[in-house]
């Protein structure tokens, strides 16, 4: 059962990481323009 304690803590860590990643992505403007970035790969240079 003791592995469960570790898993609970690990889950909390992953949750924190996911929230941090989301907030960082939103603040970085990654959700503000879903169109331009999607076509960037098609640029020639």
């Amino acid at each position, binding site marked *: 059962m003791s592995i469960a304690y570790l898993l*609970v803590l690990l*889950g*909390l860590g992953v949750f924190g990481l996911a929230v941090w990643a989301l907030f960082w992505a*939103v603040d970085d403007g990654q959700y*503000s323009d879903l169109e*331009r970035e999607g076509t960037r790969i098609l640029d020639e240079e």
Partner: protein
Amino acid sequence: MSARAALHARWSLDEGAHEHVVFVAEGIRCAGCARSIERAVRTLPEVDAVHVNSVTARVSVDWRGGGGTDLGGILAAVEGAGFKPVPLAGEAAESEYQREHRASLKRFGLAALGMMQAMMYLGALYGASDIDASMTRLMGLAGMIIVTPVLFYSGMPFLKGAWRDITGRRLGMDVPVAAALLIAWAPSVVNTFRGTGEIYFDSVAMFIFFLTAGRFIEMSVRHRSLSTGEALGRSLPASVSRLMAGGATEKIDVRELAPGDRFLVPKGAVVAVDARIDAAGDVRERVALLDEALLTGESAAVTRREGELIRGGSVNLGAPLEFVAVKALGQSTLASIVALLERAQVARPGIARTADRVASWFAFSILVLAVVVAGLWMVVDPSRAFVAVLAVLVVTCPCALSLATPAALAAATLRLARLGVLVTRADAVERLARVDTVVFDKTGTLTATHTEIAQVRVFGAEHRERLLAIAAALERASDHPIAAAFTAHAEGATVAHSVREEAGLGLEGEVAGHVWRLGTRGFVAALARSQNVAPLVPADVDDSAVFLGDAAGLAAAFEIRAPLRGDAREAVAELRRQGLRIVIASGDSHAAVAYVAKALGVPHSQARGRLTPNDKLALVAELQASGRRVFMVGDGINDGPVLASADVSCAPGEGSAVAQSAADLLLLHEGLRALPRAVATSRTTLRVIRQNLGWSFAYNLAAVPLAALGFVSPWAAALGMSLSSLGVVLNARRIALGGHAS
């Protein structure tokens, strides 16, 4: 301050070894525009990074200072790419729109992640009996660590809203919502530390997730309409290539473009003003492939043929094309629509106001009910009082109720835009659904803009064709709108000499050595009288006709008419099938109105001619006094007051008509068929709103007694609340899909 320093101050440049600037580039419309700016700036030396956001039109550039590149060069490069750089005003640096979008997205995202993770931990406790107390406690603690930030970050707008309501001594829906959140959360925290008792963190997370989802949808809809207006204003190019007589082009400010100017629109660029395809120019293409998404919201390509009006704001998707400007920028459709949209966004729909009033009353009832339930359970079984009160508060959350109207109106606005009808006032949809009379202002709405000769009455011995040719020869030099009707009848051999025009009366000229007059009855007859000949004056011809005569008297009368628009008959028939009474109220001659009425099958009594704008106003007032709800369709140029006085009004979205009209709806395509479809859509919308309100009330009525009696656990209440909200949103989606309207 040097010129350079002044420039840098105006553009709020960060100076240093690495320089950085952010500004708006007007004219960015799509990812392609963003790409061309990035390309243009990146070719400059010492530029480290350039980033263009195609939604907010922000351009951000980083470069190494002190080298060959300076701010002026960057701005010139952006201008060279065809966009107009504009400095950001301090407040606009981070737009309100962007702040709200980001905050809302973070709240929603946190709630979603939190709900998933809380379920993971606390779901394990449901029905589990072999978990030891310390593990239960750990799960509770983990849930608390996750849900507490969810409550105070994602749920903050509701807590703040409730606080505002309480301190303002008002009652809104935020009050019971916040009460439910806090009374579920607080005891759960206490129970977690005590190690016994129920914990409801998962229900709190689920509740907040659905609340923020609702807010997020609502915000997206609002931003969509807001950004339409903003995008419309920004979408115009700053300059256009005007074609010179010799075939060369020159770049001019779009504001300098005058009606009649020919200009070139490259592929992917925006047609700046209302225009037509240039038929005279060296064009291989006579068909334009356009994207009218800015005007209609529909991003599919549209074909417009030679002669059709192309609205400013359309994007040329096909080959580069030459256009002739029809209107200057200020009078173009786009400029007018931007102004109208701004007005539309200020007004709140009546039905939404009603919903707010209902919500306030509803919130009060819930709180009273919660207190009563708490009191009764305290007497019967104090241990179950808490669960019952919590279930009542959650189950009655009027998410469904508050979503019912906005979701339906948003879907209806979208659907109407696809049909080519732009809603400029928020409550127009609701009022359109209730109309029972349609009043057409004949000019320009039921009939085409060009004229044709409908009938020729010959009074003398001359042949009909000969008379038509003479009239055409006289009219050739004239730019009166009627002249176009005669063009088709011109004969090369028949030429008029020494033609002079008497303003408002007609034309006089010599054809084959013979003097003719063409114009009003009196003007033409005067020629014969001047020769002491009693002119032949037929009594049964309407005064609206154009007469032709010589010294011997009147020779012919031409009835000039604007033909019916191709889809007028079908549209009117469809409107009548929908149970609407059709009335024609026109300033035109009785004969012209009678002709249109007959062609459309409108009873004679419902077709009025020779009405002044005041007469029309009186007619609408009269109809309204007799209890009818009037839908006025007019071209709006002189009829602003009439359009405003009608219950709901519609105008063709053409230039000056739009600018001066007080219309609630704009027809963006020139099709009248959109009218019956719009009526059908609005009726569907009203029905859906009623269904939604009915459904949410029924759900609450059914669920409240169960919750009050203690049969519903908090998580089941949160689930039921969510499902009822989802049902309402999905029901509203039916309008956008538009099963009934097509």
